[in-house]
């Protein structure tokens, strides 16, 4: 078990001021192979992985098994060979356990068919039924970041050998706050049945390849598979409102901005933070972010709320009356990541966004 013990201390001195975009923030590098359906695979040894986002040692092929819609949700199901991933609990990162009877890695994606926005923070489960309709497995699956797969939900499952199966993919009604165009959406649970064909011929195609720049700082570019969105957020330059800049903390990019005259802030301006992975701009969900204001009179701390908005996408936000003074550089603003993204990682992401330092915002940057 790998343990990382750093704890971000709330109210610590704000450090690491970085404003503006890191180079390469919005561009992924090309995949190693022939551009067919591939995905990263964990390096089991894992020694010497850089302490930031890196190109993983292996890429493995996968197949799109099918898609389906129910209610407000659109789903897809893909499979590949079983693989290790990394579970994050606080600042502990530990490898998942692989069993001999694990047959496939099941990957489910869920998104809004109207906007193509991939949906984080849903409660997702998958039940695999055999050709006779018997349940072979059923479990809650975890949200995951993968460079090639993007944001998805996944698990290694044990099937009863090769054969035809049905993946019954279920999502709970969303419980994080949804705003504006999403206010009345995604309330109710939904599920679809997707046929999954697990054949020997297919399993043999789940072969690995080795990226030339494995282990280097960078990321493989996400794979496009039909309608399925990778979950990439808009580029920082395309985010709405007045930009406060983009800072970096443990290789996470925190893009910040201010919206005025929207329902989000009520009568006040609205501060939002849109944290994303470098290169591929995948959302970083399930953080606890606090904004710290340094005024002439002292210090004020605000907790940001996790929200899903049809314009801002998944973000963290709070009403901020002091926004004009922040923009004018009269009030200092820091962002404290008290809890780093509690999302499972495929190889290449497990060493980043774990020990996140507080950052300061420099609107002039």
């Amino acid at each position: 078990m790998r343990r990382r013990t750093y704890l971000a201390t709330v109210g610590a001195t704000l450090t690491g001021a970085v404003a503006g975009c890191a180079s390469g923030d919005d561009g992924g590098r090309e995949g190693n192979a022939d551009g067919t359906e591939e995905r990263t695979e964990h390096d089991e040894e894992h020694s010497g992985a850089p302490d930031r986002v890196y190109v993983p040692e292996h890429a493995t092929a996968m197949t799109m098994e099918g898609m389906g819609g129910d209610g407000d949700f659109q789903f897809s199901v893909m499979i590949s060979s079983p693989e290790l991933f990394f579970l994050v609990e606080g600042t502990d990162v530990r490898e998942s356990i692989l069993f001999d009877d694990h047959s496939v890695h099941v990957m489910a994606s869920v998104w809004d068919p109207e906007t193509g926005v991939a949906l984080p923070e849903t409660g997702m489960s998958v039940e695999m039924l055999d050709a006779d309709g018997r349940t072979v497995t059923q479990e809650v699956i975890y949200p995951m970041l993968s460079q090639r797969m993007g944001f998805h939900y996944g698990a290694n499952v044990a099937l009863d050998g090769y054969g035809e199966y049905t993946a019954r993919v279920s999502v709970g009604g969303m419980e994080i706050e949804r705003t504006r165009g999403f206010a009345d959406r995604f309330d109710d649970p939904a599920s679809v049945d997707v046929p999954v064909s697990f054949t020997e011929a297919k399993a043999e195609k789940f072969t690995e390849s080795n990226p030339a720049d494995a282990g280097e700082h960078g990321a493989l570019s996400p794979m496009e598979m039909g309608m399925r969105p990778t979950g990439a957020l808009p580029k920082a330059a395309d985010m709405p409102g007045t930009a406060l800049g983009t800072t970096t903390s443990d290789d996470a990019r925190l893009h910040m901005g201010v919206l005025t005259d929207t329902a989000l802030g009520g009568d006040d301006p609205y501060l939002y933070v849109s944290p994303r992975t470098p290169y591929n701009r995948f959302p970083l969900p399930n953080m606890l972010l606090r904004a710290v204001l340094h005024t002439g009179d002292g210090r004020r701390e605000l907790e940001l709320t996790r929200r899903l908005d049809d314009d801002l996408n998944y973000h963290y936000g709070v009403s901020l009356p002091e926004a004009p003074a922040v923009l004018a550089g009269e009030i200092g603003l820091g962002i404290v990541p008290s809890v780093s993204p509690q999302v499972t990682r495929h190889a290449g992401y497990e060493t980043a966004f774990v020990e996140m330092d507080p950052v300061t915002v420099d609107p002039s940057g």
Partner: protein
Amino acid sequence: MFGTSDGSRREFMRAAVAIGGAGALSACMERAQEPVPPGDRGALPTRQYAWVDHVPEDEHGNFRLPRHHVFLYSNYEEDGTPSADEADRLETALRSLERAYQWSNQGLLFSLGYSPSYFERFDRSLPSSVDLPAPRRLSDFEEPDLDEQDLLLQLASDSAEVVLAAEEAVLGARDEVNTVEMEADAGDFLTVDERRTGFISGGMPAEKATEGVEGIPTEANIPEQSPLFMGFKGGFADNQASEDHIAIEEGPFAEATTKHVSNIRQRLQDWYIEQDFEDRVAEMFSATHAKEEMVEGAGLNLGDGSGITDAMTTDLVETANEYGRVGHAQKNARFNRDADGNVILHRRHVESTDNGYASLHFPSLQREISQFERVRVGMNGDDVRESPRIRQRVNNGILEYIFTLHRGNFLVPARSQRSFPTPAGEVV
């Protein structure tokens, strides 16, 4: 497979109840070891659910449910309302059972409950003193089948042959039980729509029943003393409403109670494999239980209570941010007390391997169905999910491992009203 030891005999009996039917019954009767005490109709309690004083207690004062349970979700076959003659035949059949078997775990305990769908057969509605809404989903992530059969007959006994014989007899497939003649039966007008079975305790550790059952990993090390698949004792006396507190107090159904029954599939792979004992304690009870090593093995050392204190039920978001988990008992304790501090729910859950899947039949008795719904909604931990470390079903008590397949609501009237009551509390 079925040897002569006590353990294998019990396992045989459990499997026989799950299979049901005349064949299973005769196999059980051949193996029956002790005579079953006959009944005394003069000694019966008013309440059908008065079971606690008729079953043994453990050393801590927790009551022990009978081992074997059969749940017969049944429909009245005709349109409209049952006739007076049919009500009379049903009542006569139930009285025959009461004469045949002592009202106890050694004999037979049973209750008949009626659903909202049943009462809709009548022109008038139930009085406001009865809170019996139609069943519905109680979380954002479940899509249960709703049990809307007319009635639920639950049979319970320590003896497999008793529940099987009672089932056969009440449906007309058997003329005599425990040497008592059945003077009538309900087979002409009642049809069983769903037959479900359960088992618990009484020296029948859950670990014995896991072979070949979907949902429990072979690597699971269920403590020998655990009556439940999840490895811990449940139903602590301190956390159970008394039968007085679940009795409807006034109106035509005074002394009745309401019964919510869910059927919950258990998927314990990650519970036992991804988590260690400390993780399981934190998710079942609280992080404090885990840190302070309050739980040994199946938790019998906890005595008659789960050890949840007021401090464990406050500031759960902060606790979650720090420990990354909230406990099932910790969440529920916040909702399971009335203004006077009395426990609201009376839970009688049993394990099941119906159809080869590990599951739980979970009857909860309470004065009003709405009370159950409030506690169950509290178990979703909506407020606790303000912490980013608590997801809809992950790190959130035991929600990751349970899948609700069925929900049904029933009114369990007083014994005198149990055979086809009208919404006014009369018998048709």
